[in-house]
Structure formats: C-alpha cells, structure tokens
C-alpha cells in the first residue's frame, strides 16, 4: 500500500506541474500584460501612477522578461501562497478567494456525499427490480437528470422557488442572516438554502452513478457464483450484500474520477446562476474584467483540488480492491 501511495504521489507531481502551466497560459491569454492592465485601470480612476511605480511593478511581475521567467516568478510565489493582486478589488487574490474557496469545497463535498448516498441504494434497488415499473421510472428520472444541464436546473429552481414557494432560492443565507454571527437560527437558515445547490449540482452525477451501479450489479448478479451460493441455501439478502454488491462497488468508487470534476464544474456555473458566495461568481467577474491573476489562481486551485480528490478516490479504490494495490507485481 505504501509503495502504491508513493507511486501515485510521484505521478501527481507532473500532473500538477502541467495544471500550473495551463493556468499560467490562461492568465496570459488576453492581449496586453498585467502591468499595462493595472495602469489602465488606475488611469481610468484618475490616478496616473508615476514612472517609478511602473518600473517597480514591471520588475516584480517580470513582464519584460521571457515567458518562462514570468512563469517561474508566478509559480514560486504561488507555492508560497501569494497569487498576486486583484486589480479590480485591490486586494490580494488569496484574501479574495479564501473564504469562498472554503465554501466551494464544502458544497462540493456535501454534494459528493449526497450523490453517493442517494445513487447507490437506488442503483441497487433498480438492479434487483430489473424491468419493473420502478426501474423504468428511476431510469427515466436518471436520464432526465443526466440531460438537464446544471444551469438550466438552477434557473428552473429559481423560477419554481419564486412562483410556488415564495422564497428566494439564490444565495446561501437569507438577507437577515447574511452578516449575522453564527447561531443555531443561522445554521438552520444555511441548511435550508444549501439543499438547492446540492440537488442542482448533484443531479447529473447522481443520475450517472445510478446507471453505473445498476449496470455493474446486473452483470454481477448473472454470474454463476451467485447461483451456486443460492443453490447451497445462502440467504438471498446476506449473499447480496456480501458478494455481488461489494464487487459491483469498485467501478462505483472509481467513477469518482469523473464525478469530481463534474461536480466542481457544475458548482461553478450553479453558483453563478444562484449567486452563491462561492468562487464561481468571482471567477466569472474576473474573466469579464480580465482580472487574470484571480482567474488563474481559481483554475490552479480548483484543478489541483480536483486532482487531489481523484487521488483520494484512487486510494480508496486501492484500499477496497487488493488487485489494484498489488497491480504490476504479478
């Protein structure tokens, strides 16, 4: 297990390096460099910076140096936790993203838990009652969940919430709790808002996972060992939980590799539509105003977290399945 862990950790380094290069590439995509943009922004507000400030900034960001030097300056600062300044907000990027990033991670984690706790029982139920009415209904709902894009579901929720429940679905807090200190009432209010983004973000992942669970369990149930165990009089329920379900779980665990990026992706767009105080709206804002250090930090942090999350799911899979742990040592 330790060898496997080390191998996976080593493999992660080039991945993270490439992610950082892509993030830096996105930072540099818009025409013009950061210092020009910053000075244009200041000039727009009537403050003309003197020549010295400009030279100082050019030195700091290395804008006149080759691109790889700029990259190394950026990444070494980033590794120390300094992602540059947001010129729109006039604050360090870390400060800007900090709280919001924590909330993004929280929502993503809760969504993942939601996806797995809902999808696995439904998938198992569907497989056990193959071609029954419930199976058809659940399959159809699953397809629907897979086909309604996050942002449309969010828009529909906004409309339904307003029209029929007379509540504002957007945000994570009601107006009266927005800036209040944490209390039980505020926590309850938070929870009452949280379920909307979770359902919106989790819908497609849940639908996909139901299908994975169902298909794999069906394959497993048709195998001869199941028939043999039944023939020997093993109780149906015990047999089911002890063997086929456990075997069918492996692809379910490994599907975290596609569910995680999908959830992160979905929560970004959902947060924009529902106007949640997470990183999504800030990211869109940063892209619109070409505040590229914010955007770059967002891509870097979010993608790195996704990769780390995928690693954790791989480790879980290795823990659950010894064939993977000892793979390659035949």
């Amino acid at each position: 297990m330790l060898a496997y862990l080390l191998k996976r950790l080593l493999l992660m380094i080039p991945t993270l390096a490439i992610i950082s290069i892509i993030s830096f590439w996105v930072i540099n995509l818009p025409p013009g460099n950061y210092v020009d943009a910053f000075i244009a922004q200041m000039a727009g507000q009537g403050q003309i910076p003197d020549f010295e400030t400009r030279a100082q900034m050019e030195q700091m960001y290395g804008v006149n140096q080759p691109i790889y030097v700029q990259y190394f300056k950026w990444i070494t600062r980033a590794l120390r936790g300094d992602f540059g300044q947001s010129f729109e907000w006039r604050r360090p990027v870390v400060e800007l993203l900090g709280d919001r990033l924590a909330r993004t991670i929280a929502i993503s984690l809760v969504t993942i838990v939601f996806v797995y706790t809902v999808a696995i029982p439904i998938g198992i139920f569907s497989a056990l009652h193959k071609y029954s009415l419930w199976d058809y209904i659940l399959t159809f709902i699953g397809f629907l969940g897979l086909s309604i894009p996050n942002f449309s579901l969010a828009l529909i929720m906004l409309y339904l919430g307003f029209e029929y429940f007379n509540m504002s679905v957007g945000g994570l807090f009601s107006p009266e709790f927005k800036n209040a200190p944490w209390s039980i009432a505020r926590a309850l209010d938070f929870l009452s808002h949280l379920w909307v983004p979770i359902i919106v973000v989790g819908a497609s992942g849940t639908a996909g996972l139901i299908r994975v669970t169902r298909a794999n369990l069906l394959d497993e149930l048709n195998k001869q060992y199941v028939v043999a165990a039944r023939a020997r009089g093993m109780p149906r329920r015990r047999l089911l939980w002890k063997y086929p379900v456990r075997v069918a779980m492996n692809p379910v665990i490994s599907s975290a590799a596609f569910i995680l990026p999908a959830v992160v992706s979905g929560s970004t767009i959902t947060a924009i539509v529902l106007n949640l105080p997470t990183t999504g709206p800030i990211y869109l804002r940063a892209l619109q105003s070409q505040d590229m250090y914010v955007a770059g930090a967002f891509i870097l942090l979010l993608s790195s977290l996704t990769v780390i999350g995928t690693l954790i799911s791989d480790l879980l899979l290795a823990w659950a399945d010894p064939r993977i742990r000892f793979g390659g040592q035949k």
Partner: protein
Amino acid sequence: MLEELPKLSANAGRDATLPSPGVGAVPTSTVRISRQAEAYYTASQVQLIFWRLRKHRLAMISFFVVVALYLTAIFSEFLSPYEYTARHADFLYAPPQTLHFIHDGQFSPRPFVYGYAMTRDPKTLLEMYTQDATKPYYLTWLPKVEPYKMWGVVELDRRIFGTAEEGTVFLFGTDSLGRDLLSRILYGTRISLSIGLVGVALSLFLGIMLGGISGFYGGVADVIIQRAIEILRAFPDIPLWMGIAAALPPNWPVIRVYFAISIILALLGWTEVARVVRGKILSLREQDFAMAARLAGVRERRIITHHLLPSFTSHLIVVVTLSIPAMILGETVLSFLGLGLRHPVSSWGVLLQDAQNVRTIASYPWLLIPILFVVLTVLAFNFFGDGLRDAADPYSD
C-alpha cells in the same frame, strides 16, 4: 426480425438435404434457406445495426426527434413566423399567445390567437398584457411576408405560417426588444446544433490521430498521450472553457467566434475518442488481418486508416453521438454566461442570457422556454446514443 431468425434457420436446416461431410465429398445439393434468413446472412453490418436499433423503440423515437431538430436547423428561416431580428416595438415582453379553436361558442378547425389588450395592474400600477377576446386572428398557411433570403441565397416571400397583417402570432411570447421568441429559438437551433457537429468533427480528428498513434506505436508516445488524456480529464471542463473563451476579443466577427468556440470545445473533447481508438487498435493490431497487411508491405498509416479503423467505425459513431450533447451544452453555457456568442446572433445560450436573474424569470417566465429545447436535444441524443451502443455490436448474443 431477429428473434425469428433461429426458428427460420432451424426450418431451413430441416428442409434441406445436407451433404455428408465425408472425405473428398463433393457438395451435390445446396442448402435452401428462406428469404429472410438469407437476408440476415448477407446483410451488411450497417443493416444489422439498423435492424437491432429498430427494436429499441425509445432510441428510434429519439432518432426522429434528432432528425426533426436538424431539419428545423436547416429550414429555420422558412419555419419561423418572423425574422429573428425583427422588433415589434409595441409588444415588448409580450406573453405567449395560446392557440384557440372556439370563438364565441363556435368551433373553427383553423386555430386562432387573440390579440393583446393593455391593462394596468391595480396594485403595482404596471402595464400588463391581457388577451382581447374580441379580436381573433386566424392563422394562415404560407402567408405572404416581406421577402427574405433562405440560407442567405434564395429569395422567398412566404413563411410556413403566420396571421393577418394587423394581428400578431407570438406563440412563445417576445423578449425585451419585442422580438418573437419562437422565431429566435428556431433560428438559434442552427447555431446551437451545428456547433456540436463542428466541435465533434474536430475532436474526432484529434482523437483518431492521437489515439491511433498511442495505440499503434506504443512506447514513449503512448505514455505521453495517455498522461495528457488523464490530466485533461481531471480538469473541470466548464471553468477551463470559460477561461479560454474569455480571451476571445470582443470585436471578432460572429463566424470567427463560432469556430473559436468549437475549437475550444474540441480541445477537451477529444479524449474519449482517443481512448476508444487506442483500446480498439491495441486489440486489433495483433489480429491476423493486420499482420497479413503488414506482411504484404502496407504502410502503417494505411493499415490504421484502411484496415483497423473501418472495423470499429460503429463504436466511434456511438462515442461521437454521445459526445455531441456535451458540445451543445458547452456552447449554451458559454453563451449563457456572455463568454461565447453574443447578441444579435441567436443561439439557445444567447437567448437564455436574457433570463439570468430572478426578477426577469419571475416576471417573464416564457424566456425559459429555450431550456425545453436544450433538454429535448440532449435527451434525444442520449437515448439515441444509448440505443446505438447496444446495437453497435451486431454479432454479440
């Protein structure tokens, strides 16, 4: 069709006199089989796939939905009652007019709509549209309208339906500038549906090339390409698309933005194709027919494109069908966020851009109608692709 086959061929066996399989036996009689069974044995792979697909009812319905959507995209000018840019200044944010058949207790086989009347809401004092039940406007087939250009080439002066000159027909309502939403959705179909095809064509090209290299040559190229796929798949796609799309200069002409967007979508979309191509080539290149071609001195690129690729075309079609909806959604999301195509062009995402905040949605809920088209398209592609996947391997079971 197929479930009858075993029975048919069993009958065929009984009817015919089979030659005895002795050493040096000369076949003196032929095995007679029924027409259907013969059709089965001589059918091409495409036909077999089609027969299996036909049994999948949901997939067939979805197939017709997809075809209908693409026909709409092709003939959108003719099918929409108004020009998509035409502004009706007297009807801003007009709600949808519903079709009626009974006026004053009299049934008419020709549907009609009621005109609008303006009233003031006693509470909010806002102007509101209500229907004016005294003014029925009957729909007419092929009314004469102002000349327009079909596909920008052919000049036509009729549209499929409309109403009398003084009336209006806004079946889906109008937007903030008084443009007919139905017409805008139909015109938008063209961009929304075709961008998926262009994106998929690009990702198919990238996927076959990279997957082919990876599977056929193996070694360092394989390792690098596989790592690249892994990394790209770990990326949350929408944020990355947003980041790249945001860098497109706002003064670019529509057509350039259109292709730029499809390239952006293809940049992340090729991995699934590459994965399938690599897997198939890995297993097929060891087969005898590939070896025979190699011994006959066929060049390697030709082996891949002429011998290996055709044997898994059906699998590729499945992957492609299932990846089109993701592309369509990608464009819709980007345009919705204002990072893709922009007004005055019409695509479903651009239309939904008008429905971004709660107040608009609450006051003018019909602006959400494009969502129905997005969901219908994605659902149809998913069902069809799923049925196709089951049918793609005609020799299984």
